[in-house]
């Protein structure tokens, strides 16, 4: 198998091409645009047989993608940040239709102030919608996850849409070696989508997503979505085994790095996990039993896997690349909820890192490990905090002076 240098965006486009998607409604937004540009070029050149339609907004785009999915074709779309929020109400609608749409989100911090760089407030805003979520660390994983995503959500036991997430710039525009699988092997793993449940066609009229006045009716549909999402954990395991059989690469719901014998653990997601792994390696070299747990499948939430991975550890720091304003890190709460009934639960810290693409320096990782060690020795566990370096603060002081903020 030959590798080539591809950006995360190009890897995503290859995933869509190999999945032989039928319909792609599109709307540009930085840093996602390269995905749809690449697909548009391939379709124009005759390399792909998909139908590509430019839409007037993300709201229409997500509607069109979901509606196409409801007719039984394989659909794809992609967005980012403000675009995801602009189409937000349709996320809930499309999930409620129980259609297997695959959407890529390229993470970018939300305005205001406006930025182009990455954090996960956009994709995590969609966490309650019914869309499943896979978060990727590498460009290879982006391509592979798109193939796995179709296989997972087209399964009769699931039938919910899914977001495959990657970091803007740090993955979307970063080139690294990626293996592009052979189309025949992809077809072995991902057969054509042939829906058996009700879907739109002229000879078989149906109404989709009817009104459900009355709480007991509404509750039934919503809770079935939740159970379908939970069922996806079981299906995901099968998909994972099948994928490894065909392509030799293993992607569990979570990934442990030097985790088995670790006492002090970082919990991270997406491309910044690479920085966390390097920090774990450095800490190990200093004699600290450090490890890292990367969360990959975030919805459905793999609570049991996380419980097993973290129970018995001495102290854990969840590094959230997001902020729930007024609460703190979003994933910290999720992780805490699946550990709180464990007798052997670790001390649990919350750090906010990498907001708007801010680097997490080696010094910050060191600070975090030091805090964990001190807490195990009896010092207090501090509340959620965002770390800053002296240089970053001095730069902010300088800019505030220019802005007349003294």
């Amino acid at each position, binding site marked *: 198998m030959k590798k080539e240098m591809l950006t995360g965006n190009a890897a995503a486009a290859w995933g869509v091409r190999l999945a032989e998607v039928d319909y792609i409604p599109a709307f540009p937004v930085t840093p996602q645009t390269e995905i749809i540009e690449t697909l548009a070029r391939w379709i124009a050149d005759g390399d792909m047989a998909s139908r590509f339609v430019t839409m007037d907004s993300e709201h229409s785009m997500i509607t069109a993608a979901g509606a196409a999915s409801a007719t039984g074709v394989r659909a794809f779309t992609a967005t980012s940040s403000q675009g995801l929020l602009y189409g937000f109400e349709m996320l809930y609608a499309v999930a409620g239709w129980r259609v297997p749409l695959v959407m890529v989100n390229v993470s970018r911090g939300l305005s205001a102030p406006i930025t182009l760089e990455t954090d996960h407030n956009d994709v995590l805003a969609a966490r309650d919608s019914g869309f499943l979520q896979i978060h990727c660390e590498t460009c290879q994983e982006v391509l592979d996850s798109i193939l796995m995503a179709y296989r997972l959500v087209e399964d009769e036991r699931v039938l919910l849409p899914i977001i495959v997430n990657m970091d803007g710039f740090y993955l979307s*525009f970063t080139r690294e070696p990626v293996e592009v699988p052979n189309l025949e092997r992809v077809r072995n793993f991902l057969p054509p989508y042939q829906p058996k449940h009700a879907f739109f066609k002229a000879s078989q009229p149906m109404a989709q997503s009817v009104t459900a006045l009355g709480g007991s009716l509404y509750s039934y549909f919503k809770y079935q979505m939740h159970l379908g999402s939970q069922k996806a954990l079981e299906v995901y395991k099968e998909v994972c085994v099948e994928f490894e059989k065909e392509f030799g690469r293993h992607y569990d719901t979570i990934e442990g790095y030097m985790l088995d014998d670790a006492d002090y653990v970082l919990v991270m997601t997406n491309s910044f996990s690479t920085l966390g792994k390097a920090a774990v390696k450095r800490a190990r070299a200093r004699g600290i039993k450090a490890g890292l747990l990367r969360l990959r499948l975030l919805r459905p939430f793999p609570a049991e896997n996380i419980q097993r991975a973290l129970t018995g550890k001495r102290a854990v720091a969840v590094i959230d690349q997001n902020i729930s304003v007024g609460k703190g890190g979003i994933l910290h709460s999720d992780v805490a909820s699946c550990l709180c009934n464990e007798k052997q639960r670790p001390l649990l810290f919350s750090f906010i890192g990498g907001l708007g693409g801010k680097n997490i320096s080696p010094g910050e990782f060191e600070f975090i490990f030091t805090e964990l060690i001190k807490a195990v020795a009896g010092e207090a566990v501090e509340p959620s905090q965002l770390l800053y370096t002296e240089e970053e603060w001095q730069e902010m002081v300088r800019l505030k002076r220019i*802005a007349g903020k003294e």
Partner: protein
Amino acid sequence: MLMLRVRFHGRGGQGAKVASRVLGTAAFLEGYYAQDFPLYGAERRGAPIAAFTRIADEPIMERGVISEPDVVIVMDKTLLRDHQAKPLSGLKKGGVIFINTPQSPEEARAEYTIAGQIITLDLTKICLDILQRTVISSLAGAVAAKIVGLSEASLKAAVEKVISEIVTDSVILEKNIEAALYCFHAIPAVELKTTEAVQMESRVFTMPFEPAAISSPALNTTGTTVLRKTGNWRVFRPVWDYDACNKCQICVARCPEGCILVNEEGFPYVDYENCKGCLICVEECPAKTLGKEREVHAKADSEEVIG
């Protein structure tokens, strides 16, 4: 273990991103692990951008910006005095600085008071001569490939691969290869004497509270844009021939920056500190009395307030 970090500094449109890809591809084709990555704000031709290439003999466990490069490639020398770009920041001891300039290394060292190994070459002139344009991506990629010690064959294959993904015109592709190979041979081989950096320890702390009067993203001052001298964005400057100029003022009306003024005699003149060199005035002059000259002298940003 080998790990080399190269940082490119250019202006939007010069090809810094593609230069980082030429280098990354050359390293990858030579059997190394490679990673390349650009960083820029909202697209603005002429504005400072940076791009990064990492080359290693084992999987790369780094991402994002390179703060301590072994090699810095300065594609526009006016960036050396840019307070935001800071192209030389963090360069490792024993590292190499390449500057795109007609100056000799000694002249550049004296003008910018730079320590360290300096290599210079006028990439823009070579590019104008061979390609009749100022997009120097292949040329900058080529000098970087030479500095890090990659082979000519890898460079040639990388330029072919990367440029053919961007342009379909085979003549442009051939000329890119020609220009790249010329630059590869025009600079001397060097020895990189950097060692693995010891991270400078910086104090880390929890961000404290500041009231909204300070912490809202608002500017309470006017005139901050004059602190950015966009005159450095120029490759060419517009020049008037007052003997032929009939004072029609069309250039004044067409200037998108509003930086063409009129003197007491009614002749147009430009504020070169802010003219971006878009040359719309040259294009629009009905009498064709406006010409263009290659810009070779850096204008310093104002030394006050910023920095």
